[in-house]
């Protein structure tokens, strides 16, 4: 009883539903990106573990490093990284599905479906095109993302240097020193 009297009476705001959803999103976004990424890597077997895994890791690291160096841009950088990773994985899996669909198609079937005579190598050429797109997107998307983050870092440094120089000039002008 004595302890109860001494205890401070405080008004404490409880966690609202919005707070809970915010925390759920904060944990859910990266976990979804991770799950989709691992799913893509395991589905692609050797292509996944040898090529997609290191390049995905490069995207993760680029996003993390930029987020750590620029705390003011952290939220946008993290969101960009998660969206880029999910997009990358979904595009690769989509191309894999397209390749799966087209793998059984022969030139005769293409001729029948177009109603137009095409060269006899047409059937295998389509698979080649899709594989080209697959390779290009598997390599170029991470390179593009890393370039974007590097540009962001360089631009931020330049802006900081410019602001610093302007502040210096302003202080000289105002204090005459």
């Amino acid at each position: 009883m004595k302890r109860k009297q001494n205890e401070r009476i405080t008004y404490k705001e409880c966690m609202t539903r919005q707070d809970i959803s915010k925390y759920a999103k904060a944990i859910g976004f990266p976990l979804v990106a991770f799950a989709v990424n691992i799913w893509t890597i395991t589905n692609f077997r050797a292509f996944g573990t040898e090529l997609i895994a290191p390049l995905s890791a490069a995207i993760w690291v680029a996003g993390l490093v930029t987020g750590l160096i620029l705390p003011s841009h952290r939220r946008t950088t993290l969101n960009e990284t998660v969206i880029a990773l999910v997009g990358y994985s979904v595009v690769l899996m989509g191309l894999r599905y397209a390749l799966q669909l087209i793998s059984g198609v022969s030139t005769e079937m293409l001729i029948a479906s177009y109603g137009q005579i095409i060269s006899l190598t047409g059937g295998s050429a389509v698979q080649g095109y899709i594989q080209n797109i697959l390779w290009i997107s598997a390599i170029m998307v991470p390179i593009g993302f890393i370039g974007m983050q590097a540009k962001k870092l360089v631009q931020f440094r330049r802006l900081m240097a410019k602001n610093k120089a302007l502040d210096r000039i302003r202080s000289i002008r105002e204090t005459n020193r």
Partner: protein
Amino acid sequence: MIQSFKAYNENAFNNLIFLIGSNLSILLIMLCAAAFVFLYLKEEVTMSVQEEQNIV
């Protein structure tokens, strides 16, 4: 059914352990994902402060 569910999950977990052990990139991805969760949570904690004040 429960046994097959258990076996499925054990298999998935063992596969994940194998992937991590055989490929360093996947380990890096896992670490980065954990760091992302931490940074996202840190952003939320610094953004919303629980209000607490004395009444009397």
